[in-house]
């Protein structure tokens, strides 16, 4: 017998022996689990994104059955999965929140926003942000290294050649991983029906902001003044939408006067998403895995 035969037999034999031992142990030590756990786990999307607040789909399924936590927390699964889980649990009439998608709240493209330095460090937004706030003049703007792109397990956010990422609203599940990945908190989860957005996070004084970014909110208050009472406010030199339904209702009036096009109606009345002017004609470029 050659060495190869002996090795094969030995390893095969050892493997078989342990397989039998494990099989016996599996039979003897089987734990009776609620079968619904496995059922619900199979219904969940299996992305293990963690949007529900549990380490993975399996852990969430267990929590649903054993601890009775609400089962409408799965963002990627959405209404469909919630209904199916409800069926497994025998519960009816569960409210499902509106689908949410990620939105990048910055238009500071390479053309529109000025740089104040040349950055040669680690190719990551987080690293750049911690290196004296990165290379952009705007301390709140998108750094464009694509941490969010790499964080997305659904291939739903891509970098564009203009240096600002773009969310694919069809693929986005609203899990919020990109929101966490962004060191500058530029990405927000928004209801899919929301039409008007303030695409700026700049809290600098308007006179300064306008110097380094074409699309910065300069805190002129024109949108706030034209919006329904109490639906918008000006906070830290930045317009903020408090009640998007009211603002959407008066969309044209609210956005009309904006001198920097930082407040925009991105979703039209038919629910179609349009690119903001800064990203018009943008092409998707690959973000290299680091």
């Amino acid at each position: 017998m050659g060495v190869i035969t002996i090795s094969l037999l030995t390893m095969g034999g050892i493997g078989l022996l342990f397989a039998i031992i494990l099989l016996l142990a599996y039979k003897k030590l089987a734990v009776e689990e609620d079968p619904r756990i496995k059922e619900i786990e199979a219904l969940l999307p299996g992305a293990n994104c963690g949007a529900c607040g549990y380490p993975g789909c399996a852990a969430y399924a267990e929590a649903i059955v054993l601890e009775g936590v609400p089962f409408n927390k799965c963002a990627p699964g959405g209404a469909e999965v919630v209904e199916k889980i409800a069926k497994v649990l025998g519960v009816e009439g569960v409210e499902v929140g509106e689908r949410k998608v990620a939105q990048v709240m910055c238009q500071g493209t390479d053309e529109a926003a000025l740089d104040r330095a040349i950055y040669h460090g680690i190719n990551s937004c987080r690293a750049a942000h911690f290196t004296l706030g990165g290379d952009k003049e705007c301390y709140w703007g998108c750094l464009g290294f694509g941490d969010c792109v790499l964080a997305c397990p659904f291939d739903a956010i891509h970098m564009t050649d203009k240096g600002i990422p773009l969310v694919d609203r069809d693929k986005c599940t609203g899990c919020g991983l990109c929101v966490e990945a962004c060191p500058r908190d530029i990405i927000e989860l928004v209801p899919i029906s929301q039409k008007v957005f303030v695409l700026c996070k700049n809290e600098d004084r308007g006179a300064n902001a306008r110097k380094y970014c074409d699309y910065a909110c300069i805190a002129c208050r024109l949108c706030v003044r034209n919006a329904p009472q109490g639906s918008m406010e000006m906070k830290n030199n930045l317009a903020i939408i408090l009640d998007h339904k009211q603002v959407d209702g008066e969309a044209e009036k609210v956005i009309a006067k904006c001198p920097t096009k930082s407040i925009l109606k991105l979703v039209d009345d038919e629910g179609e998403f349009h690119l903001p002017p800064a990203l018009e004609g943008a092409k998707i470029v690959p973000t290299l895995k680091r």
Partner: protein
Amino acid sequence: MNNIWLILIATILVNNFVFSYFLGICPFLGVSGKASSAIGMGFAATFVMTMTAFVTWLINRYILIPYNLEFLETVSFILVIASLVQFVEMFLKKVIPSLYKALGIFLPLITTNCIVLGLALLGSMRNYNLLENVVFGFGAGIGFTLALTIMAGIREEIEFADVPEPLKGGGITLIIAGLLALAFMGFSGMLGGG
């Protein structure tokens, strides 16, 4: 008998697997947040390591060496370890579910952990007899538990300390690990130049 004590003391203190061989660093940093789960993890690892030392010695002595198959050492040891961890996992799930839950992902991680494989390979290198090898495995496990428990104790206290912002979390943990390793260096030479 003297020899056995020597091996035990040596593996626990002098050649502590974590602090002097730097094996098993992943669970050492991962599970040392809370003393209770650290002790649980330590004993689960000790159990796996003792069993591993026992089974790998048998396989090595009665299967691999007689057939000149020493080159299969690593592969077959991995197989043994993987099966053992599976077994321990089932056992814990049935008998001590709370410990099973507390260990979580770290139990399967023992499978792929260098500390167990390192123990099996080091043991076979040293030509121990069966009893010595088992004691070696047990001592390594206890040493690992000791390291984990000391670390967990310190980390629980560190929670209340005013740690500089950039060092919070991982940073201070690694510094503590380094200081502990330095402290354990003091044991070297304890057993006649060991």
